[in-house]
């Protein structure tokens, strides 16, 4: 029983490490997709956020500032995606693919340029990382220490999720962004600037994805490596589909995927099941969910379709 409680604490701890980057990115993805712009560049935006976070923390020693800068770097690539997809009506999937080439390419390129041709950035000082809440309150190794002593940004993401939910469903802007994803022409008729709403949403999606990436380098790991994001951006997109394009659904899906990753962390030490098979779970679950339930749920009607302003 005792070991069960210890393991439970460890599982909660691992989940609280794995979930936040997915959730930050998924909340970003919600903004973009609900406003009618497909954003598969989330993965690249996370990578540039991870790089920027690690480098800014290394040079300034200020974790929260670095975290914010990670978001800004993601937002910059969000802006590129927005210009291509909204102003130039480019194919949104192709533009996202381009972002997924460009952003990681630039991240590794700059890393090599800054750090003597090394594709890994130097380790960030522990003091320059995001602080942990409740550290030193509970004895080390106890259940409460494992379960509660998490990085502050991990708690913050749930606050952000609540705010995003509020914005989506309780504010005028939220109503407009959802309307732009369903019927932009009607929005335009009512005097809503569809371009402006979509620009804000796509840039926000980059910002949040950047925060998710920065969380990885400022909390989970303390350096940037080229393979640091591998697929987390795509899992975030999967979570959004699984969560039916709602922030609250995406939050639950991210928690589910986070628990999967937590189980993988625990199982890999015991070697009972291949960690590679456990890594597949989020993708297989998403496929099954698509087949069984979500196939009938509605994707925002104008998703992926370029919008042309009326002449």
């Amino acid at each position, binding site marked *: 029983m005792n070991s069960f409680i210890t393991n439970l604490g460890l599982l909660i701890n691992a989940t609280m490490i794995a979930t936040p980057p997915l959730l930050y990115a998924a909340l970003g993805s919600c903004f973009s997709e609900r406003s009618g712009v*497909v954003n*598969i560049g989330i993965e690249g935006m996370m990578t540039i956020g991870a790089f920027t976070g690690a480098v800014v923390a290394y040079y300034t020693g200020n974790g929260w500032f670095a975290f914010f800068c990670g978001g800004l770097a993601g937002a910059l690539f969000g802006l*590129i995606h927005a210009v*291509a997809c909204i102003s*130039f*009506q*480019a*194919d949104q*999937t*192709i*533009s996202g*693919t*381009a*972002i*997924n*080439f*460009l952003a*990681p*390419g*630039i991240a*590794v*390129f*700059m890393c*090599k*340029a800054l750090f003597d*041709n090394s594709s890994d950035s130097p380790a960030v000082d522990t003091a320059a990382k995001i602080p942990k809440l409740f550290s030193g309150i509970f004895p080390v190794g106890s259940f409460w220490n494992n379960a509660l002593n998490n990085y502050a940004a991990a708690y913050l993401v749930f606050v952000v999720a609540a705010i995003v939910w509020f914005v989506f469903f309780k504010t005028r802007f939220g109503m407009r962004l959802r309307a732009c994803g369903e019927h932009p022409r009607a929005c335009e008729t009512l005097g809503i600037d569809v371009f402006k709403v979509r620009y804000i949403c796509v840039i926000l999606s980059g910002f949040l994805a950047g925060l998710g990436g920065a969380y990885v380098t400022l909390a989970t790991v303390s350096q940037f490596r*080229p*393979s640091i994001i*591998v*697929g987390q951006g*795509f*899992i975030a*997109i*999967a979570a959004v*589909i699984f969560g039916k394009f709602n922030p609250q659904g995406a939050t639950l899906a991210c928690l589910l995927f986070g628990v999967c990753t937590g189980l993988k962390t625990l199982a890999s030490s015991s070697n009972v099941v*291949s960690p*590679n*098979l456990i*890594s*597949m779970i989020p*993708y*297989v679950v*998403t*496929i099954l969910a*698509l*087949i069984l339930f*979500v*196939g009938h749920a509605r*994707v925002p009607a104008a998703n992926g379709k370029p919008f042309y302003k009326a002449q």
Partner: protein
Amino acid sequence: MVKRKGILYSHAFYTLLSILFGFIVGAVLLAAAGINPALAYGKLVSGVFGKYKYIVYAFVYASPLIFTGLSVAFSFRTGIFNIGAEGQYVVGSLAALAVGVLFELPPVLHVILCFAAAMAAGALWGSIVALMKTRKGINEVLSYIMFNWIAFYLSNYVINLTVIHKVGGGEASRDINPSASIIFPEAVRDIFGGNKNANLGFFLAVLVAVIVWVIINKTTLGYKLRAVGFNNHAAQYGGINSDRAVTTAMAISGALAGLGGAVQLMGMGNRISQFSAQEGFGFQGITVALIAGSSPIGCIFSGLFYGAMKYGGTKLSMVDAPQEVVDIIMGTIILFIAVSHVLRRVITAKVEKGGRKA
């Protein structure tokens, strides 16, 4: 004047312009990083054209990319965006690996069997997504992406199985049996500047590109596929079973990417290593198809361009330039090709307006 207008309307003009932009952006970043762009680009060129052997390497690097490019180009013609070529490539190479490692067969037969297994695996991977699309209406882009990652972890799982895993440790599979290799015998390799990886891949790629061109342009199947790509509803009204056409196209597209995986394994890698990140052959195929404007024959040339850039990129470390500049150039090219149709509309509209005034 008429001729200039012709150029401004052509796809090739905007593609070349995009490539030029790609190199400019790359040069700006190199300069910003304190590296002389002329030096880096010079190394890129001399790294490929410096020796006959190097040029052959560019062809070796190009071979799998032509296949994934053909895969994406083929799907584009039916109005499908095969972003899943990456996963189909991986399962293709995995199937070829299994046949190559586990079977002892006469040389030519062994190679054919590996290719068949790779095509079947790639086609299967594409068909599942196609069925999800036609039966359940699930957006193929999403399921392709999921299947890419399932393939990624499947490959890491399979190469760690005892019968496949390299004897004596190391994070890789065993080597395929020599009978399954498509690398030329030494006498033939001497013709290719003694390049130790000179292989059948490129010749096969050209052959397959021609076959794909014939399928698209000269067969009933190709006609149906193009009809669905142009206007799904009109095609259906004309009596074409569009679901079946889409499924066929996605399966063939998958088989082509799978074949690319087999060619890379049997001509270059000999084994599959544990992935830490996606290899990218499938995604690079998207670039190849876009640069080629989805023309199968064009894919041979754009594949060669990408292959040369990739191989030249490996030499950049000699002048202390990060090889990631190749990714940046390619990403910029895709972005510019994606927005170039608007540029074309704006420019041609201006030309027409100017013409009317005059």
